[in-house]
């Protein structure tokens, strides 16, 4: 009886399982395998063992790049959250008509090539760039300001990239806040500040945390913007890995850092998966 059940179920569902296969095979062969290989190389080259990982404790260059990355990512996350929160707040409270335009301001930069955006910032910020020329032309500064090819430039470009990613999860959380609650609090005599601090902010906090996690993990492995706006002087993890593999041919060290990066990201996600509904973060946009 039971065996007959299973056979019937398999006959009914077998076709559906077959539909899973192409994507699953593609992912296993051409995504998971190369990544597992990266993890493996970090333990086997140049010689088997934990040698590459000992460098975290001993190698100054390794420590410096980790520290730089964490510092830049923390600053980027904080700024992107602050700006994104303001934008999400304005979008949430806007009228239906205005909201469409506000959303376009978020979605267009989100989808425009990261290269184009970095290029725009270089055009604006470099020594003979538009900002320096304007300021010099107006007689405000005598010498051009050093706005790019340093940490300042990296952060300006990265925050610009990350704000849309901060806005979307916060917007999802804020849209569930009942607007009549705010009007009611105001009607009962709360000031604007009190309504925000005691009603709106606590209700929007889950979205804030989700956005923070998302922006932080995206920032950690960011390559193009820091490489262009840092001009090779301030190295973040991704550019450092590329340098190890392409220029110095030190696979062991490069893959060790890549492994560290993936583990940090997965652990961060796991820690916050209790607070943040990951499925909604990635699945409901």
């Amino acid at each position, binding site marked *: 009886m039971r065996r007959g059940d299973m056979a019937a179920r398999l006959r009914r*569902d077998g076709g559906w399982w077959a539909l899973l296969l192409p994507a699953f095979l593609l992912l296993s062969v051409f*995504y998971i395998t190369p990544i597992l290989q990266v993890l493996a190389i970090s333990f086997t080259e140049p010689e088997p063992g934990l040698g590459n990982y000992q460098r975290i404790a001993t190698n100054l260059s390794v420590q410096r790049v980790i520290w730089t990355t964490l510092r830049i990512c923390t600053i980027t996350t904080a700024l992107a959250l602050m700006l994104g929160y303001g934008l999400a707040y304005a979008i949430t409270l806007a009228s239906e008509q205005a909201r469409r335009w506000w959303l376009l301001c978020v979605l267009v930069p989100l989808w425009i090539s990261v290269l184009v955006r970095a290029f725009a910032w270089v055009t604006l910020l470099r020594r003979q760039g538009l900002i320096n020329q304007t300021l010099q032309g107006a007689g405000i500064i005598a010498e051009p300001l050093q706005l790019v090819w340093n940490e300042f430039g990296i952060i300006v470009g990265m925050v610009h990239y990350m704000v849309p990613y901060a806005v979307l999860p916060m917007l999802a959380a804020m849209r569930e806040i009942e607007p009549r609650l705010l009007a009611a609090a105001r009607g009962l005599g709360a000031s604007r500040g009190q309504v925000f601090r005691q009603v709106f902010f606590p209700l929007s906090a889950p979205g804030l945390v989700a956005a923070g996690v998302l922006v932080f993990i995206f920032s950690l492995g960011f390559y193009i913007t820091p490489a262009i706006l840092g001009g090779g002087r301030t190295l973040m993890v991704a550019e450092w890995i590329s340098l190890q*593999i392409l220029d110095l041919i030190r696979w062991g060290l490069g893959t060790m850092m890549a492994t560290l990066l993936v583990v940090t990201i997965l652990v961060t996600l796991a820690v916050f998966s209790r607070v943040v509904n990951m499925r909604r973060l990635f699945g409901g946009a």
Partner: protein
Amino acid sequence: MDGIYRPGWVGRALGWGTALYLVLPLFIILPVSVTDQRFLSLPHEGISLRHYAALFAAPDWFASIAQSFWIACASTVLAVGTGTLFAIACWRLNRRSTELLRALMLLPLIVPSIVYAIGLYRYFGWWDLLDRFAGVVIAHGVTGIPYVVITVSTALASFDPRLEQAARGMGASLRQVLAWVILPRIMPGIVSGAIFAFIHSWDELVIVLFIASRDVFTLPRRIWDGINENQDPIMAAVAVLLIGFTTLLLVVDMALRRKRDT
């Protein structure tokens, strides 16, 4: 929330400021692209379209645009074909195991592309796929699947599973159910996924930097070299065209969504 509660001046200022910070730097490229000068700057004496003319006359830029376009098309087909079937099967089977599989499928969004790129760099060496059209298509196709899975799953969430059961009950085969019942209803989700998979491949640089060198030289790769090496205003013309193209695709996507929602 139509106007029941309006933001105060702090909220409004922060909102406007952020929106301008997001959008203004992109607009600044437009006047730079029509400069009459030979270097990146605002127009001095008048506007000129010479850099656009130079772009269309340059065979290497044109070849890169064509190559990027065909790679994006092929990898979109790969991602949409496999990703759509995958999302439908997960939705229909709806088990704990398929939930896990779906989460696994989102990995390319979470794992930084630099990690994948160095992995492929060595892995494709064995498969003899380095610097090959097929290699880039596979890499972009696999990393494009999550976008399709997300948009198709979202479309399926509002699809009544009983329709599928009714069709099966009346004797439709799996293929007929897919072609006549499910696919037509979720078409807007599939098109959205295709648009995002296309943009993903069209803009992708990090993987290409590692697995392609001479024969495959995509548009992002050429822009990357351009940014690092010269200050040719052709770059601004390319940037303007790219912004226009992406905006166009997004507007199409928004129109489709509005159609689906009504």
